[in-house]
């Protein structure tokens, strides 16, 4: 069911009032947000909604796109590929031609298939899928599609960066892998196995675990196993409740290891990290974080936290996605995906952190500087903590865009 948010309605109403109700029936550009809004992963989806609403409010305050306002409509896909396809169809029926989805590569794969088929069958009514978080490498390699654009670095890029960082840590002797049992978790596991062996042949992989996605409520048995393996480091791509509960169980058992993660910053993660006292021992690889030191970033973070009850700006990529989308639409002077998609391909974009990034035309993968950061008590020029713990993310290493440039096997079929 499309659950139109009251917030959206209010914001639109307020805007309309502000404009003196100049255009009573002004058409809206609908952005359909499809992600889990119920179940274990719902907190992740809910926070995603706040990001998109914030961006849309900003874009609308600047005049919208081509004289039209953007409007967010949200759909709950319950993390299921089938529900995703149903939600996408509903979104299109409701008039949306821009779809965005992030969580769950299973859902994202279904979305890419759906969008490809839909666009083949409905020429003139093309829709576009903007992917802000699903990082299975296949989406910009073998399964690449002209109608799919990805703003997050894919799993292999992240693993490349993490393992390069681990290469410089001689203390690492035994590594444990624990991942979710679906396409993304498999991708992380495969990449970790290959890259750790290539870069650190001396390191032993003492565990290679797969567990069901978003089903486990008690990770204590897994933590006991990690402990028994004698690992000194854990690599995990877990996200949402799966990383928060894993860290919580580790905190309960006082498991002292280094964590190399993709998403330790999600809801509940920082609290558990502080509880175990893992100062400087939990690393995450992201495209940015609250304490990257530019005045623009600080101002952004401050403003967003004021509007979201203190929760931080998790997804710099949502900002990149929405600003580039608005730019492409305005430059193309069209809100038709078929026209503005051309503008997105190869688009250069200046990040809030001051450096430049771009959307690679061959595979529609966004390339940007990546940051490895660790959670540590606020000190020096660190301004923002997480979940009121007094601990915040501090950059441990910055990987310049040039070093993240992995080749692609994509053979993009351009629509006629």
């Amino acid at each position, binding site marked *: 069911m499309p659950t139109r948010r009251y917030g959206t309605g209010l914001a639109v109403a307020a805007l309309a009032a502000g404009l003196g109700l100049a255009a009573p029936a002004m058409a809206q550009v609908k952005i359909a947000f499809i992600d889990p809004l*119920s179940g*274990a992963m719902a907190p992740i989806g809910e926070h995603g909604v706040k990001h998109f609403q914030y961006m849309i409010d900003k874009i609308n305050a600047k005049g919208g796109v081509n004289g039209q306002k953007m409007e967010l409509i949200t759909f709950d896909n319950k993390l299921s590929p089938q529900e995703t396809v149903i939600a996408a169809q509903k979104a299109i029926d409701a008039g949306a031609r821009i779809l965005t989805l992030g969580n769950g590569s299973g859902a994202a794969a279904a979305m890419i298939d759906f969008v490809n088929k839909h666009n083949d069958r409905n020429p003139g009514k093309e829709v576009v899928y903007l992917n802000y978080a699903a990082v299975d490498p296949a989406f910009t390699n073998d399964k690449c599609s002209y109608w799919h654009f990805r703003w997050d670095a894919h799993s292999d890029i992240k693993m490349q960066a993490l393992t390069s960082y681990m290469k410089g840590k001689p203390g690492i002797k035994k590594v444990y892998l624990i991942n979710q049992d679906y396409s993304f978790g498999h991708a992380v596991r495969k990449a970790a196995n290959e890259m750790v062996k290539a870069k650190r042949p001396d390191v032993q992989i003492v565990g290679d675990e797969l567990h069901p996605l978003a089903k486990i409520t*008690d990770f204590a048995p897994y933590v006991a*196993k990690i402990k028994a393996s004698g690992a000194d480091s854990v690599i995990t791509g877990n996200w949402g409740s799966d990383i928060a509960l894993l860290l919580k169980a580790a905190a309960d058992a*006082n498991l002292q290891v280094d964590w190399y993660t993709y998403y330790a910053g999600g809801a509940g993660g920082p609290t558990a990290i502080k509880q175990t006292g893992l100062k400087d021992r939990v690393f995450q690889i992201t495209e940015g974080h609250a304490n990257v030191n530019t005045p623009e970033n600080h101002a952004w973070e401050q403003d967003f936290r004021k509007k979201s009850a203190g929760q931080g700006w998790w997804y710099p990529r949502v900002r990149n996605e929405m600003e580039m989308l608005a730019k492409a639409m305005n430059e193309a002077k069209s809100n038709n995906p078929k026209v503005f998609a051309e503008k997105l391909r190869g688009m250069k974009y200046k990040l809030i952190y001051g450096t430049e990034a771009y959307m690679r035309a061959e595979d529609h993968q966004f390339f940007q500087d990546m940051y490895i950061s660790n959670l540590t008590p606020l000190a020096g020029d660190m301004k923002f903590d997480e979940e009121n713990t007094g601990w915040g993310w501090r950059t441990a290493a910055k990987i310049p865009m040039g070093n993240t440039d992995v080749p692609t096997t994509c053979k993009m079929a351009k629509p006629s």
Partner: protein
Amino acid sequence: MLELVIFSTLNGVLYGMLLFLLASGLTLIFSMMGVLNFAHASFYMLGAYFGFQLSQWLNFWTALIVAPVLVGLIGAGVERWGLRTVHKWGHVAELLFTFGLAFVIEELVQMVWGKLPVDYRVPPLLDFPAFELFGTTYPAFRMFMLLISVAIFLVLLMVLTRSRIGLIIQAALSHPNMVAMLGHNVPKVFMLVFGCGCGLAAIAGVIAGPALVTQPSMAHVLGPILFVVVVFGGLGSLPGAFIASLLIGLIQTFAIAINYSLGDALASLGMARPLQGVLSDLWQVTVAQIGPVVPYLMLVLILVFRPTGLMGTRES
């Protein structure tokens, strides 16, 4: 290795005891009324949410007492004004009634508390490590859960075997008509058992809520496994439910610790691992990955080889 065995045992027993709190009520209700109560796990969820709400308003310890009583009263009410009326139309109607009730409760919970997991925390008094073994700590709250469930098991056993009401319940299980002839109010006994069963499930909910996650899908996750416990242990058999609960708890926990796959089995027999072909993935699947399916496999096998269950005396 030893530490893995010790902690897996602790975790397994804990999970098993939680299952038992739920299964004990369910198995009595099942054997008495001949109906699988599909909504039983929903009362467990209600217990967790009531526990959460009451510990917000008052405190955890009050919630631990009050929430099960409330849920027990709701359970008794459901039996009195719901099931008893539906009973006239036979077992299928009763089954459908509880099936519908489970959905109604889940929907109500979502309406009141929302779809997101609620922030149900361990009470500060128990928020410390109970002991440390081989450098691993074990939370005090888990020890508390373990003690509570063992205590309840003992009380239940005493009541059922040593008290007058226990004897009447046991008699009503197998010969309800005879018990009624002797002048006992059998419908009232049914109501009592149903209410107490729901109350027990609610206690499990109150103590499991902070340790596991209190969310609307929690009933759904635990429901199917309960039926396995009840059928595996044997209808109406408390000791059977106890053994089955512990067995399933331990199997599920230990399965996670085992990395053995069919491929390894072949390798240890000196044969090559099949790495190609359609079924190549099958050989790589470890025991840890198939762990969640094992209880259902047990259910299928026990129904084939011993339809009365482990300790049961009759088939339905």
